[in-house]
């Protein structure tokens, strides 16, 4: 394998191709290893209930592929566990099971032009309503050839199983749409207010992401397909912006609070401090992990965001973590500065999408594990939870004393 600086890999996560190679050697190897997970003997016609599960690819934009995924032969009751971020996190489904589940989904791909009335077409084909349904929808995918047995990964979206171009997708069952969602599908309004409206009426983030991705939100004449990876972060950012607005002028929390959770060999330590809403994201990648096979020492990556939501770098992982923290603060009506430390252990061998960041942080924010600690106590607590705490701490600026102008008024 070519020697690529691991710093590059942790930023690239296999899709920006910062190393200059035509495809990511790390993902290629992972893909070839997961081949063995496949079950042999697929036919060209695949029947099954879509959980629903779709993906809009980004290669070749605006000529993109839409993947319509179906677990062949699964029962409708069973189908939803193939696409269930919240459930996976709640039940603590391990990494290997998620990879296996996703490898059992068969994807039929349709080529579409993102800008050419794609949503209308998908709506007529009933693919859009099926993809937004809150229950699995019986479907039949006629493939042009037998699928290549493989699983594809990237850092943001869930793994995609064996894939082949589809001759057609027939939606057999009745999609069931939440009434609120059904109402906004044809509303001539920008995507952000619509996403916010859906979110506030309780539609879950993953369904909003899917709606944006299908081109179901936005001014009617400007609608287009949005590659899933882009849509995920776009929705996180849109909702975070609104939540930040709702917190404007609210009082600060009273004291330091610590939250913690761990899932899929990823640890999240969140420290809230009285403050106006600064955020700091510290990512620590252990060596010998997926992206850090050649690293000699842990790698650190930092993103900071000011109270107006301006950040030092774009990072989908940070955006995914930010949303549940702002949800938590908005529910309390309080402002706080937040430090999020993500420690990635080497056992995180396959990237399964950034949903786990959102869900694990959300779980962590349910209750604090400690409040009102002194600096010494925080030191001991954090040191016990995160192996590389001293390294993380060197990069955290929010714990250092920060004079404000009020000290001088």
């Amino acid at each position, binding site marked *: 394998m070519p020697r690529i600086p691991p710093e590059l890999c942790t930023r690239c996560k296999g899709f920006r191709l910062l190393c200059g190679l035509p495809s990511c050697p790390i993902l290629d190897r992972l893909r070839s290893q997961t081949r063995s997970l496949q079950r042999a003997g697929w036919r060209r016609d695949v029947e099954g209930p879509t959980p629903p599960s779709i993906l809009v690819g980004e290669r070749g934009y605006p000529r993109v592929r839409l993947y319509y995924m179906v677990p062949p032969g699964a029962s409708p009751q069973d189908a939803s566990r193939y696409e269930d971020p919240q459930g996976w996190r709640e039940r603590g489904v391990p990494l290997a099971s998620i990879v296996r589940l996703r490898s059992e989904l068969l994807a039929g791909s349709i080529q579409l032009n993102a800008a050419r009335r794609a949503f209308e077409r998908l709506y007529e084909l009933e693919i859009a309503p099926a993809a937004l349904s809150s229950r699995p929808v019986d479907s039949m995918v006629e493939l042009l050839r037998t699928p290549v047995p493989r699983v594809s990964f990237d850092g943001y979206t869930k793994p995609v199983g064996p894939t082949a171009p589809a001759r057609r997708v027939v939606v057999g069952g009745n999609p069931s749409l939440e009434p609120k969602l059904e109402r906004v599908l044809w509303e001539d309004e920008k995507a952000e207010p619509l996403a916010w409206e859906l979110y506030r009426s309780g539609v879950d983030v993953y369904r909003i992401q899917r709606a944006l991705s299908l081109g179901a939100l936005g001014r009617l004449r400007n609608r287009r397909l949005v590659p899933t990876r882009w849509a995920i972060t776009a929705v996180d950012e849109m909702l975070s912006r609104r939540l930040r607005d709702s917190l404007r002028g609210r009082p600060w929390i009273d004291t330091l609070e610590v939250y913690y959770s761990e899932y899929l060999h990823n640890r999240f330590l969140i420290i809230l401090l009285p403050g106006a809403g*600064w955020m700091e994201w510290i990512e620590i990648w252990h060596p010998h992990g997926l992206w850090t096979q050649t690293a000699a020492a842990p790698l650190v990556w930092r993103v900071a965001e000011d109270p107006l939501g301006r950040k030092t770098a774009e990072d989908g992982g940070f955006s995914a973590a930010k949303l549940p923290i702002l949800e938590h603060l908005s529910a309390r009506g309080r402002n706080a500065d937040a430090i999020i430390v993500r420690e990635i252990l080497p056992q995180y061998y396959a990237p399964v999408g950034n949903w786990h960041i959102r869900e694990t942080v959300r779980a962590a924010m349910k209750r604090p594990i400690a409040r009102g600690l002194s600096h010494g106590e925080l030191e001991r607590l954090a040191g016990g939870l995160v192996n590389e705490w001293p390294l993380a701490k060197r990069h955290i600026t929010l714990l250092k004393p920060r*004079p404000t102008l009020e000290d*001088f008024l």
Partner: protein
Amino acid sequence: MGLVRMVDARLYFSDARTWRYMVGSIEKIVEEGVFVATGEGLSFRALDTSHVAMVDLFYPSSAFVEYEVSGKDSVEFGVSFELLAKVLRRARKDDELVIEVDGEKLYVKLKSRGERVFKIPQIMLSYEKLPEPKISFTVRARMLSSTFREVVKDLEPHSESITFKATDEALLAVGRSDIATAEIEMSVSRGSLLDFDAESNDKASYSIEYFSEMLSSAQAADSVAIRFAEDAPVRVDMEYLGGGRLTFYVSPRLE
């Protein structure tokens, strides 16, 4: 007889672009705030959300072509700077600016050959007068606004912080990040400073971002005055034609 409409305040300024550039900077630091127009002039003071910086504006009534504040001692009007900046961004060379406060409405007019009228809502904000920060400055320096802009632009690309250091004769501006440092020396003898006075060889560091945000307002200023003291806030005054002044206070970073 023509119809004369009574407004609460009418401020007529000869160069709309000065306001465009000032508001361009203010917008980056505070989202909204209350202007106060009295017989002496127009003023504004607000802290940024994280309370690290303060914006303090004063423009004397004598700097306006026409300046009318009706009846009462003062007229207050709240604005969203995002909105005001959007309007003022349309200001071109030769445009004059008229701001009219009429009840709950705010008219911003750009006049050159024609007149463009923008009506924006006032926002209702509770207004409490902030005190001026009390700092005993030990170092004072004045420079042309172009010098200030060059210094910030030189440091910006590779710095997270800007450190001011005073020697007996010169002011040093040092930019620093994990990888690189940059140092700029300014003095009266070399012609880069207009005035310089240091009571002691103090130094202090600040986040570079706030200085980047000041660049827009410096574009229309004549000169820039910087004052600081050891590990104390910095005061940066943008000095405009006619005695207008836009001041930024930024609290120090402890290194």
